C-alpha cells in the first residue's frame, strides 16, 4: 500500500500546487509518465565518475525499499519487524543518502559538492527529531518496533493527544526536510547556488534519474505512512483500515501541496535554526512524556 501511494502522492502534490496558483496543472500521473520517458532513454556518464556514482541510485532505492518492509500498513503488522527497528529505519535511509552524497562528490563538481554539504548538514540536524519522536512513542506505548508501537498507540489522555498532534506536525516537517522540499529547499529552483538536493543529481540522466525520483517518492510515502498509521483505528476490519490508510496518504499529499503553496523558502542561513526548532519541539514532547511515564511508574 505504501508503494501504491508512492505513485500517487507526487501527482497530488503538483496538482494541489497548480490549483492553489490558479492553474489546471498536469495530469495526476504525469510524474509517472515523465519517469517512463526517462526509463526509455539512455544514460550519459561523465568520464570523471567512478563506480560509486553508478551504483548510488540503486543503493538509494534499495535502502528505501528495505525501509518500506519495516513500516506497517494501518494497524497490520509490517513485513519485517524486530525490536528497535525504527533505529534501523533511520540508518538504512541514512545509508542511501550517504551514497548519494558520495556520488555528488564523485562528479568533482563544486556545485554538487556544495549541495552534498548542505544535504549532509540538514540530515544530521533532522535525525535527532525523528529519533526523539519515535523514542517518545516507544516510551508511551512500551514497545520499540513500528508494528507494536502503532498497534498500541491510542489517544487515551491529554499527554497522548499532545504527542499525537505534535508527532503529526513533526513527521510532516521531517518529510519536507528529508525530501528537500520547502521551506529548506525548493525543487523548482533553477539556480544551482541555491539548490540542495537538485544540484546533487544534476549529472544523472535516463534510468538513473528515474530511480532517484522513485526513491524520493517512496520516501515521501514512507513518512506519510507513519503519519497515517497513528490515526488508523485498530478495531476496524482490514478493508476499512486499508481504505482509510489510502485516504490519509492522499490527504498527506494534499497537505504537502498546500504547505508548499503558501509558504516561502527560508534563507539558506536560517535552515539550521529552523530544523533545530523541530528538535526543540521534539525534546519538549519527549520531556513531558518522560515526566508522565516517570510519575506513573512511581
Amino acid at each position, binding site marked *: 500500500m505504501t508503494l501504491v501511494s508512492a505513485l500517487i502522492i507526487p501527482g497530488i502534490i503538483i496538482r494541489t500546487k497548480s490549483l492553489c496558483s490558479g492553474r489546471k496543472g498536469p495530469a495526476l500521473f504525469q510524474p509517472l509518465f515523465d519517469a517512463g520517458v526517462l526509463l526509455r532513454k539512455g544514460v550519459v556518464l561523465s568520464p570523471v565518475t567512478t563506480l560509486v556514482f553508478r551504483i548510488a541510485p540503486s543503493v538509494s532505492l534499495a535502502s528505501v525499499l528495505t525501509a518500506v518492509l519495516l513500516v506497517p500498513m494501518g494497524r497490520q503488522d509490517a513485513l519485517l519487524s524486530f525490536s528497535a527497528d525504527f533505529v534501523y529505519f533511520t540508518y538504512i535511509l541514512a545509508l542511501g543518502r550517504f551514497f548519494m552524497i558520495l556520488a555528488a562528490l564523485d562528479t568533482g563538481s563544486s556545485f554538487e559538492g556544495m549541495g552534498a554539504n548542505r544535504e549532509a548538514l540538514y540530515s544530521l540536524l533532522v535525525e535527532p527529531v525523528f529519533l526523539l519522536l519515535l523514542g517518545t512513542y516507544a516510551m508511551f506505548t512500551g514497545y520499540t518496533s513500528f508494528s507494536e508501537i502503532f498497534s498500541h498507540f491510542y489517544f487515551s489522555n*491529554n499527554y497522548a493527544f*499532545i504527542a499525537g498532534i505534535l508527532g503529526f506536525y513533526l513527521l510532516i516537517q521531517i518529510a519536507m526536510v528529508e525530501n528537500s522540499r520547502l521551506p529548506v529547499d525548493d525543487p523548482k529552483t533553477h539556480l544551482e547556488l541555491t539548490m540542495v538536493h537538485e544540484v546533487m543529481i544534476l549529472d544523472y540522466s535516463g534510468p538513473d534519474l528515474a530511480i532517484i525520483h522513485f526513491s524520493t517518492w517512496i520516501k515521501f510515502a514512507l513518512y506519510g505512512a507513519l503519519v497515517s498509521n497513528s490515526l488508523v483505528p485498530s478495531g476496524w476490519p482490514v478493508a476499512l483500515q486499508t481504505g482509510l490508510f489510502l485516504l490519509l496518504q492522499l490527504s498527506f499529499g494534499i497537505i504537502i501541496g498546500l504547505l508548499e503553496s503558501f509558504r516561502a523558502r527560508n534563507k539558506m542561513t536560517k535552515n539550521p*535554526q529552523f530544523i533545530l*526548532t523541530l528538535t526543540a519541539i521534539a525534546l519538549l514532547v519527549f520531556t*513531558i512524556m518522560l515526566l508522565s511515564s516517570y*510519575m506513573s511508574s512511581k
Partner: protein
Amino acid sequence: MEIILLVVFAFSLFYLSMAERFRTYTALIALQGLLLFGLACFRLREMNVANLVFLVTETLLFKAIAVPFLMYRILNRIQVNRVHPDALPGFYALLLTMAGLLLSIFITRRLDGQLIERTFMLIAMLALFTGVILIITHRRIFSHLVGFLVIENAVFLFSLAVGMDAPYLVNIGVLLDIVVSILILGLFMGRIGTRYSDMETDNLADLKH
C-alpha cells in the same frame, strides 16, 4: 487542557529565544499573558470575586494588553525593530534554551508533587532560564526588558505550580516592578536614548561621565 496551554507556553519561550524582531517579542509577551490567564483560570481552586477581578487585571488587562501596548508605542517611537547585530545568533540561543530544558528536567525529577505540578514547575523553570538567557545574550535594553517580563511570568507559573495564588501584596509588588521597568525603558528611549544612535545598555554606563 492545562497541559496544552503549558506546551503552547513552552513554544512561545522557544520562539522568544531565537526571535530577532522586537515586534515578535511584544506579540509573544501578549500571548504569554493570555496563556497565563487561561492557566490561572483552570488552576486556581478557590475563585472568589476579588480573586477573579485581580486575576483578570493582572493577566488579561495588564500582561496581555497594557504592557504589550506600551511596548508597541515605544517601538513606534524609536523606529528600531531588530536585536543588536552582535547578539548571540538564534541557533545558539535556542541550543542554550534546550540545555535549560534539560536542566529543568533534572531539577523537576527531584521534586515531590503530582504530575501536573511538576509540569508547571518544568515550564516555569524553562521560562526562568529563557529570561536569563535573553538578558545575558542580548545588548539592547528592549531585549533585557523582555527577559525580565519572561522571568516575571516564570514567577507567576511557580505560584500556580503550588496550586495557590500569591498574596496580593506580592502580586502588586511584582506588577509595580513591571510598571517601573517599562517607565524606565520609556524614559531611556524617549529622553536619554535620543542622544545615542543605538539602544545598547552600555550607553547607561556612559551617563555618569
